[in-house]
C-alpha cells in the first residue's frame, strides 16, 4: 500500500474513532458536542486531516484545562467525500442526532454554503474555517454562519504592497484568475487596487480544471507584463509556473496565492527561489500565541502545523470564548460571535454585519532557499527582488 493510501485508511479509522473518543475523559460529565463535516476522502482529502488535527488539539487542550463550565468538549466529525450534498446531510445528522451546540467548518466554500443552508434552518451557529469566498455571505443573508478565514478579496494585497515598495520600475502587471467566485473577487479587488497605484493591468481567466496554460503565457508575453499574479487553485498555479519556465519567460516578480505550501518545493524543485505567496498563517509567525500553538502541535503530531490546523484551532478558540461567556444557548452564542472581537492563534477574530471576516489578513511569503519565509509588513526578513531568472 502506498503511503497516501495508508494515510487515508488510518484517517478513516481515526474518523470513526473520533465519534466516540475525542478527548472525553472517562466518567466525566456529559460533553458539550461540536461537529464538523470533513472531506476525509475526495478532492480535498489532504486538507481534512490538518483540520481534524487542529480540532483535536483544541479539544484535548480544553479538556485538560477542565473543560468549559465543568463540561468536557467533544468534536464529532464525519466524511463528506468533498461533496456539498453529503455535507448537507451530515450537518443534519450532527444537528439532529448528535445535538451539536456549534458546527465547525468544513473545507471549501461550496460545502460551507451547503452546511449553512441546513444550519440557518435549524438555527445553529457555524464557524466556517476554510471558506475564503466571502461572496457566500453576500449572495444571501446568513445570520448563523461566520467566516473564520481571511477573505479571498485580499489575496493579492500583500503582493501589491510589495510591488509598491520594491517594484518602482514595474508598470505592467498580469493577473491570472480562475472562473470561480473566490478568484474573481480577488481579481476584481486587485484590478481596482493596481489601477489606483497607476499600473497597467490585464487579467486572464481560465476554466476550472484547465491544465494547458500555454496560450495564457503567450498572452502575458505579448502584453509584456513585468509582474505576474496567479490567483487560482494550487494545481493550475503549478501548471502555469511550469509552462512559464518552459517558455523561458522571466517576470521580475511572480506571485501565486498558495505558493507558501511546502508541496511547491516538491513540484517545482529549485525553481521556487523568489516566488511570492500569501498565507493565512505560518508556523514561523512571531507571535506568542502562534509559537505556543506550533509547539503544542509539534509535541502532539511530530511536525509543524499548517494554516489549516491553525484555522481549525482558532475556530475552536472562538467557540470556546462564546461558550465560556454564554454556555450552550445557541442564540446567545450566535450573538456573541457576531459582535465580539476574539483573540485567536490566527489573530483577532472579528466579523462584519454580514458575517464576513474583517479581523484576519493574509501575510506575504517568499521562497528563500528551502523555506517560504514571511516577508513584508511586520517581518525583518529581506525580500529577494527582482525574482532571479528560472534556472
Amino acid at each position, binding site marked *: *500500500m*502506498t503511503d*497516501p*493510501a495508508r*494515510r*487515508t485508511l488510518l484517517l478513516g479509522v481515526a474518523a470513526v474513532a473520533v465519534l466516540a473518543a475525542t478527548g472525553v475523559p472517562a466518567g466525566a460529565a456529559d460533553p458539550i458536542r461540536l461537529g464538523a463535516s470533513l*472531506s476525509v*476522502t*475526495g*478532492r*480535498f*482529502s*489532504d*486538507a481534512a486531516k490538518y483540520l481534524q488535527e487542529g480540532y483535536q488539539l483544541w479539544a484535548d487542550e480544553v479538556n485538560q484545562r477542565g473543560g468549559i463550565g465543568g463540561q468536557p468538549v467533544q468534536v464529532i466529525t464525519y466524511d463528506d467525500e*468533498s461533496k456539498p450534498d453529503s455535507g448537507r446531510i451530515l450537518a443534519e445528522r450532527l444537528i439532529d442526532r448528535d445535538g451539536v451546540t456549534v458546527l465547525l467548518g468544513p473545507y471549501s466554500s461550496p460545502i460551507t454554503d451547503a452546511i449553512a443552508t441546513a444550519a440557518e434552518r435549524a438555527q445553529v451557529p457555524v464557524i466556517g474555517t476554510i471558506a475564503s469566498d466571502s461572496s457566500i455571505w453576500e449572495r444571501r443573508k446568513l445570520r448563523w454562519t461566520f467566516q473564520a478565514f481571511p477573505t479571498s478579496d485580499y489575496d493579492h494585497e500583500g503582493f501589491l504592497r510589495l510591488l509598491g515598495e520594491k517594484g518602482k520600475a514595474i508598470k505592467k502587471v498580469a493577473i491570472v484568475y480562475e*472562473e470561480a467566485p473566490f478568484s474573481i473577487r480577488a481579481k476584481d479587488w486587485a484590478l481596482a487596487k493596481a489601477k489606483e497605484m497607476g499600473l497597467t493591468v490585464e487579467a*486572464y*481567466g*481560465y*476554466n476550472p*480544471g*484547465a*491544465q*494547458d496554460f*500555454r*496560450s*495564457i503565457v*503567450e*498572452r502575458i508575453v*505579448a502584453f509584456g507584463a513585468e509582474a505576474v499574479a496567479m490567483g487560482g487553485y*494550487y*494545481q493550475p498555479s*503549478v*501548471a502555469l509556473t*511550469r*509552462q512559464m*519556465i*518552459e*517558455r*523561458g519567460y522571466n517576470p521580475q516578480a511572480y506571485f501565486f496565492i498558495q505558493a507558501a505550501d511546502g*508541496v511547491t518545493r*516538491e*513540484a*517545482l*524543485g*529549485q*525553481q521556487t527561489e523568489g516566488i511570492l505567496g500569501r498565507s493565512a498563517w505560518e508556523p514561523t509567525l512571531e507571535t506568542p500565541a502562534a509559537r505556543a500553538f506550533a509547539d503544542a502541535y509539534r509535541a502532539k503530531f511530530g511536525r509543524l502545523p499548517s494554516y489549516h490546523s491553525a484555522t481549525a484551532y482558532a475556530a475552536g478558540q472562538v467557540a470556546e470564548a462564546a461558550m465560556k461567556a454564554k454556555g450552550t444557548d445557541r442564540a446567545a452564542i450566535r450573538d456573541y460571535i457576531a459582535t465580539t472581537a476574539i483573540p485567536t492563534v490566527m489573530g483577532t477574530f472579528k466579523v462584519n454585519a454580514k458575517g464576513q471576516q474583517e479581523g484576519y489578513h493574509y501575510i506575504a511569503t517568499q521562497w528563500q532557499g528551502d523555506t517560504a519565509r514571511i516577508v513584508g509588513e511586520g517581518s525583518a526578513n529581506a525580500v529577494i527582488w527582482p525574482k532571479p531568472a528560472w*534556472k
Partner: protein
Amino acid sequence: MSLTLFFQLLANGLVVGGLLGIVALGLALIFGVMRVVNFAHGEFITLGAYATYLLVTQLGASPLFGIPLALALGGAIGWLIQAGVIARVTERPELDMLMTTYALSVVGLGAFAAGFGGDFRSYSAGPSGSLDLAGVVVGWRSLTVLLTCLVMGAATLLLVQRARVGLGLRALAQNRDAAASCGINVIASERLAFSAAVALAAAAGALVSLIGTTTPTVGHGWVLDGFVVVMLGGLGSVAGALVAAFGIGFVQSFASYLLDDSWARIIIYLLLYAAILVRPHGLLGRQEHA
C-alpha cells in the same frame, strides 16, 4: 498576430494534438475491433501518470523511464481486464458494454482517490530547458512528449497496417464472424487490441505527468477530448482521427489565445454537434441509419 506568435501557438497545439492522437488511437482501436466504447480509458491515462509519479518519487528514477513502465503496465493490465471483464460482454447488447466500461471507470476513479487522495501529485525531475527556434520556444519536456507520441503513433499504425497481427485486427473490424471463419484467432486479436490501446493510454498518462500534474481525474479531460477526436475523425479512419486530433489541438491553442480556454472548449463541443448534424453517417465509422 505576428508570424512568430502564430508558429508558437501552432507548436503549442502540436503537443496537445500529439497526446490527443495517442488517446484517440487507443479508443479507435478498441471500438474498431470490439465495438466497445471504452469509458475507462481515462483511468488508464491516470494509471500511467501515477505510476510515473511513484517511479520518480519513490525510486528516484528519471520520468522518461515512466514511458516504458507505463507501456508495460498498461499492456499487462489491459490484457487482464480484457480477459477478465471485457470479453464477457463483447457479444452482449450495447447497454451492457457501455455500463461495463463505465463501471470500470468508476472503480478506477474510486481506487485512485482512495489511494492517492484528492490533491495533485507532481515531481520536478526530468528534462528541463527549452529549444529556441527563431523566437519560437518549445520546452524539452514538450518536445519529449511530441516525439514520443509521434513514435508510438507511427508504431501503432505500422502494426495495424503492415504487420500480420494487424491484418487480423483489420479483418475483425470489418466483420467478426467472417474473420473467425477465415481462421483468425478472434480472442487473441481482441486481447491484443485492448492491451495495446491501454498501453498507449498509460504511456499518454506518463507524458501527461511530465508536462502537467496528476490527480485522480487527470485522465477524464483527455479522454473526453479523445472521444471528440474519434467522433470528428470517424472511427473508421485512422488518418481522420489524427487530423482531428491536431485540429483540436490547434483550435484549443488559438481560441484560448484569442478568447479564453472556456470559449475554446465551447467551440470544440459546438463543432462536434455540428458534425453530428451534418455528417451523421461518417460518425463512428459505420452506417446505421435505416
